[in-house]
């Protein structure tokens, strides 16, 4: 059993939308262990990215962490830390790779000067830091000299994303959050970035959380996978087990579903209906309106989190009786 690096407990995040409060993440608990990559899968609006932003304390202005704990083994609970304190752990204890739709780099500085800024921010010798950055860039199949002297707009989306990963890794953080790192890339660049993540995962002790809406992207990389639905974590299990013996009806349907051709389309073939709006949640289990196995109690009460084993849990009343049936969906 490897050591736990990050423990998220009962995390609740609310957004202010117009005058209403909306729960984007509702009572989610999750732990990440050293050297492990955990996938977090969900449709858009399921709260998976919000979870990552909350863990970084980078929620937008309308968002607020209401309750819960985000405990790093090295520094303790960071959920209530102030911005100056957070800036000391961001990047070198917990870091993030963003969706590549927009650049997260300063458009008017060279990448070298941005690396320097990163090292100075964390009190690291700039020359030593740059040597490490060069080594990592080499590993990503990029020419370090060319990259460092470039401005962000001079690189392709795939190259920028690889540099983004180097940025997130160069200070050897405990935890790396990857928020849909390949979604905005073309197929070829996706391949390269996924291979890079696989390669880096085997070289580091850091725990990684890989967030995606596409089950197939992460299933070859991850040790465990969590499934989110409408702000709730509905199931968490080792990849192989989750795929072969899903315990939650949503997981079963999701893993069997073929994503529709259009990426933007959130509807998955095989699951009728749409995920609920967070401002208009059904009572009881949030999946109940779409669930083929729904019972009366599912519509009345929220199913509790049932821990099946040390690395597996599910939030469904009927998990033990449905197990067999779901495996054969």
């Amino acid at each position, binding site marked *: 059993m490897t050591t736990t690096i990050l423990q998220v407990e009962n995390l609740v995040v609310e957004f202010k939308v117009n005058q209403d409060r909306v729960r984007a993440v509702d009572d989610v608990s999750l732990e990440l262990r050293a050297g492990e990559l955990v996938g977090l899968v969900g449709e858009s609006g399921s709260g998976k990215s919000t979870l990552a932003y909350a863990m970084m304390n980078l929620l937008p202005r309308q968002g607020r962490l209401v309750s819960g704990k985000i405990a790093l083994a090295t520094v303790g609970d960071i959920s209530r830390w102030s911005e100056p304190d957070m800036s000391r752990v961001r990047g*070198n204890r917990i870091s993030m790779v*963003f969706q590549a*739709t927009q650049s*997260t780099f300063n*458009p008017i500085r060279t990448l070298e000067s941005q690396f320097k800024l990163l090292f100075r*921010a*964390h009190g690291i010798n700039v020359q030593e830091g740059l040597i490490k950055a060069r080594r990592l860039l080499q590993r990503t199949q990029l020419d370090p000299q060319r990259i460092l002297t470039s401005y962000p707009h001079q690189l392709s989306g795939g190259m920028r994303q690889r540099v983004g990963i180097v940025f997130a890794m160069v200070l050897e953080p405990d935890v790396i959050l990857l928020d849909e790192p390949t979604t905005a890339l073309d197929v070829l660049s996706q391949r390269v970035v996924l291979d890079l993540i696989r390669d880096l995962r085997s070289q580091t002790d850091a725990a990684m959380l890989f967030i995606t809406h596409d089950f197939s992207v992460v299933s070859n990389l991850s040790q465990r996978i969590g499934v989110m639905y409408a702000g709730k974590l509905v199931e968490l299990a080792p990849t192989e087990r989750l795929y072969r013996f899903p315990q939650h009806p949503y997981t079963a349907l999701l893993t069997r579903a073929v994503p529709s051709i259009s990426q933007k389309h959130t509807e998955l073939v095989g699951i009728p209906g749409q995920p609920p709006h967070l401002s208009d949640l059904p009572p009881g289990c949030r999946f109940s309106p779409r669930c083929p196995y729904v019972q009366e109690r599912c519509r009345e009460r929220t199913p509790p989190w049932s821990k099946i084993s040390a690395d597996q849990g599910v939030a469904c009343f009927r998990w033990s009786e449905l197990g067999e049936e779901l495996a054969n969906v």
Partner: protein
Amino acid sequence: MIWRRVGLALVMIWMTVTATFFIVRLMPGNPATFELHVLLKRGVSYNMALQHVKTLYGINLHQSLLVQYLQYVGNALHGNFGDSILYPDIPVIHLIGKALPWTVFTVGTALLTSFLIGVSLGTVAAYRRHGWLDRLLTPLAAILNGVPNYLTGTILLFVFGVVLGWLPQNGPYSAAITPNVSLAFLISVLRHAILPIGAYVISQWGSWFLLMKSSTVSTLGTEFIVGARSYGIASSVVMREYVAPNSMLPLFTNLVLSIGFMFGGSVFVETIFSYPGIGYLFSSSVSGRDYPLMQGLFAVLTVAVIISNLVADLLYVKLDPRISLEDAA
């Protein structure tokens, strides 16, 4: 590409010189013919009168229009705009040379001051949107923005020069002091410059404030600010290295463009304070019907603006790595 820009600037300069020629030469009741008639009425011989008009305007009235035009352009290229009427026998270009430093000093200081005030207050207002400073300054800036400087100048002169008597009402320095390199002279020059500079600043800072505020608000919403925070860059560094440079970039073009605008606006302020710069010279040339001086001033002012625009374009390419000269056109 550089040559294309330079070529365009040259075409504009040519257009300016041509326009000044035609304004003076071809307008109904044009000053050159008018002057000729005045001299003839006074009993001056036709040849003498022609000669006189020629030295005044660089125009030979008995020659064809084309020859007159070419001679005029030739003279203008040598900086020869003829002699002043108001200040007999002094070449126009000398008068301009003597006035220019006063205007450069006041306009330059005012531009820099209002830019700094507007940019720093605008940044604060953007960071603390809807805070008390924002609520106070935004409407104030919207009202002062574009209020003509003859208005602010008159109020300043009346309040501080007349009612309170704190500062001198006119002139570049006290008549009691002979210009030399002494502290007394320097203080006198500064005291006389305060009100003119103040008049520019009060009517100018609002536009910088509004521009900087909206620019900073949009920069703060960009992905790379979140990116910088996720790398653990401290807020103050994010502001200095990311927010400020990116927000100020679009203001830069306006800064250089407003140099020309402020030179034009110096006509009012320098008239109010009898400040012996370009603007004062211009308004006295107008009231004294000194057309050669008017022409020369107008040509010099316009050429200065054209050249500063060219410099702005070329510098902007240096400042923003994303822009190439082709885009800047």
